[in-house]
């Protein structure tokens, strides 16, 4: 039996491939453009390069790292069709737990483990509530957001926990310092020297990208976000998947909490308020869809770096903080609009 082929897109394969690549690398290209723009503007204004310097890159990277790590967790949750509004306060809770453990004389390793476990637990609770109550994640995490804030305040007696500086190992400082010392990486391996927290963030990103791409779990995350009914029909244990997704998201939040403590050397329950929006923004700028099914690790990392670059660039140009906010807001809208245009282009 001979059958006519189905009609397919009339665009040649090469064009389609190019567009597909642009879609994946789009945010990265935009980031490069923004860096170039700020570099040029800065050069014109100052007469010398301040923005495009090794030192500034190290500062930006250090600022972006905790956002990258937490946004990685948000990426999984968003791809799976969920949202985690509690990520900000859960991050602060993790940092507070870390400070509390150090303050009470526990070893740094145990304290870190407690902080990361706290992160996992917050995610686990979100996942169980979403699965068991069948309430939309937006509402569930809106509630747990406040619960985690309250828990952290309770733990910290409504203040900030400041462990004695002598009890905080220097590893915390070198995790997030913009001026790592000694410069062992440069001397021994010839790689640029960033704080180890930066490298950790990149390693985590790489790991997550591999998991999403090459494992059954990763594929189920996309399937769940793309069409939950289909996932259920195909025999995927949807409630269990949701719990796994949120718990994994919480793991990243817990690690990000460790960064937060390293940066502040204290546990401030209030320090995470509003941060979840930054994580969501990173995912969205990177091409993630709030309706689920779409998002990428590369995109999220790019989105997080983009926000740090803009903040830093605006500072260098002497623009005040309000301007930075306006620029970042405009970038978010532009990113999503671009993505829509691309989608429409495809549907034709």
């Amino acid at each position, binding site marked *: *039996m001979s059958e006519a082929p189905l009609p397919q897109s009339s665009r040649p394969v090469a064009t389609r491939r190019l567009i597909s690549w642009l879609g994946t690398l789009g945010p990265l290209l935009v980031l490069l453009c923004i860096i170039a723009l700020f570099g040029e503007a800065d050069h014109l204004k100052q007469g010398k390069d301040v923005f495009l310097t090794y030192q500034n890159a190290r500062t930006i990277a250090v600022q972006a790292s905790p956002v990258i790590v937490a946004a990685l967790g948000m990426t999984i949750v968003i791809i799976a069709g969920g949202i985690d509004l509690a990520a900000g306060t859960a991050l602060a809770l993790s940092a507070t737990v870390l400070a509390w453990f150090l303050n009470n004389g526990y070893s740094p390793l145990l304290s870190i483990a407690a902080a990361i476990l706290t992160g996992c637990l917050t995610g686990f609770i979100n996942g169980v509530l979403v699965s068991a109550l069948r309430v939309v994640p937006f509402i569930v995490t809106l509630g747990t957001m406040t619960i985690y804030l309250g828990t952290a305040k309770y733990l910290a007696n409504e203040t900030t926990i400041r462990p004695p500086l002598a009890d905080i190992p220097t590893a915390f400082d070198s995790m997030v310092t913009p001026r790592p010392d000694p410069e062992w990486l440069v001397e021994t391996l010839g790689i640029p020297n960033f704080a180890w927290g930066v490298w950790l963030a990149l390693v985590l990103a790489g790991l997550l990208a591999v998991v999403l791409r*090459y*494992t059954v779990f990763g594929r189920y995350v996309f399937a769940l976000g793309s069409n939950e009914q*289909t996932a259920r029909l*195909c025999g995927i244990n949807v409630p269990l998947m949701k719990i796994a997704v949120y718990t994994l998201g919480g793991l990243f939040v817990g690690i990000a909490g460790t960064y937060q403590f390293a940066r502040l050397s204290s546990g401030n329950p209030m320090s995470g308020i509003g941060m979840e929006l930054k994580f969501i923004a990173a995912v969205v700028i990177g091409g993630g869809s709030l309706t689920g099914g779409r998002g990428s690790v590369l995109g999220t990392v790019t989105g997080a770096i983009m926000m740090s670059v803009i903040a830093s660039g605006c500072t260098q140009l002497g623009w005040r903080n309000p301007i930075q906010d306006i620029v970042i807001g405009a970038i978010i809208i532009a990113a999503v609009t671009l993505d829509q245009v691309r989608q429409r282009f495809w549907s034709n």
Partner: protein
Amino acid sequence: MTDRSALLSMHGITKRFGATRALVDVELSVRAGEVLALIGENGAGKSTLMKVLSGAHRPDGGEMYLDGRIYAPTGPHQARQAGVAMIYQELNLALDLSVAENVMLGQEIHRGGWLRQKREQAQVTAALATLGHPELRPETPVNRLSVGARQLVEIARALVARPKVIVFDEPTSSLTSHDVEHLFQVIARLRSAGLGIIYISHFLEEIRRIADRYSVLRDGRTVGSGRLRDTGEAEIVALMVGRDVNDLFPTVAHTPGKEILSVDGISGVKSPRDVSLRLRRGEILGIAGLVGAGRTELLRCIFALDPVRRGELRVASYCPRANPRARIRAGLGLVSEDRKGEGLAQERSIADNLTLSGLSHYSRAGWLALGRREKAVRDWMQQLEIKAAAPDQAVKELSGGNQQKVAIARVLHQGADIVLLDEPTRGIDVGTKAEIYRRMGQLAAEGKSIIFVSSYLPELLAVCDRVGVMSRGRLREVKPTSAWTEEAIMACAIGGD
């Protein structure tokens, strides 16, 4: 009635929901290499029966055998593993995932959680080749495929599980006629590969083309089955509706009067292209054509839902502005072909849907007189025989036929004189179809005018005063119905430029 040669058989299946008996002693059997058509009106129990077959419901009585063994699935996934695959009416695909990812969903080939993508690709390619469509690329995201191609992905997914029986639940309801041809070829291939196929459809013409045997369900019972070759259409319809339908197409005498609507050289973005037509009071004008010929677009341009590039529209001698609000005021009303997406707010009540375009009848300074509205809605529900518990029942809980009646009632409620009906009988059972034809005749007799777009030629020829045929965006020919035959319409519809 044990059929030894049957691949799948269901015996004495009974299912109760509370006091209602959804299925009573249902018998059904499919042999290998055979297509069985399962026919029945909406609510006859077809979907309940298929839910029993797929393990979504446990039967209260009866047993099923698959390949000579007792078959008692506990869920869709188990059913698929046992060899019974369902292709649902609503496609179940993760649109953001690729063809291969969708095909392998829930049946991934992996080692310790790590995907073996090469082997998956090979399986997917093999499945697509079996279906006769090796040109579909496994890595293409599904959201870039046409509806027809998406359905193939779904069938391929079923194939990978090595099924013995595949159930198609109204598979053509969202397909273009071109894709329907493809689907029939695919089903023919599956049949010759020795699979048993259950094909559920409302369309008797389709069933005649594709199926070998039929079983008719009515009120949860098997009321007849046999070879299609030996059975006439009227006989099957009579079995379905349970009464002698001497008139599938009831008509009401009406005479067209003065011209009410004139459309001159109207053109949309892609289609329609340069369409002119006249419509008189008390006239039913049918528009035939293939899917994609621009019929829906023509109605949407007349109703100003889609941008009009050129051309003029007059109601009586008045030129209403080009927005739906002005067109409604001028007396036009549109019943959309897409009940779910556009036609009705599925979550909202019958009352809300029915009065949405005519709320001003019940409002004073923005406040709604809800009591008065409810009374009016009850009147309309009675008039159109909308079967529902109460006016505040959500539309999504109604059957397709009753939903369509709500959509039509809204247009009548808003006081439309020119009613644009886009495929109003699609996906509706035979009984309700007849009611809709009768209602159309009555409206014409009351002096209202109707433009009736349909892909089902017998109804066009039975109901309309004149029929026009569209192809490639143009209105080719408008003639009195008596001057048309089905063949002539088809010839005109597929004729090129």
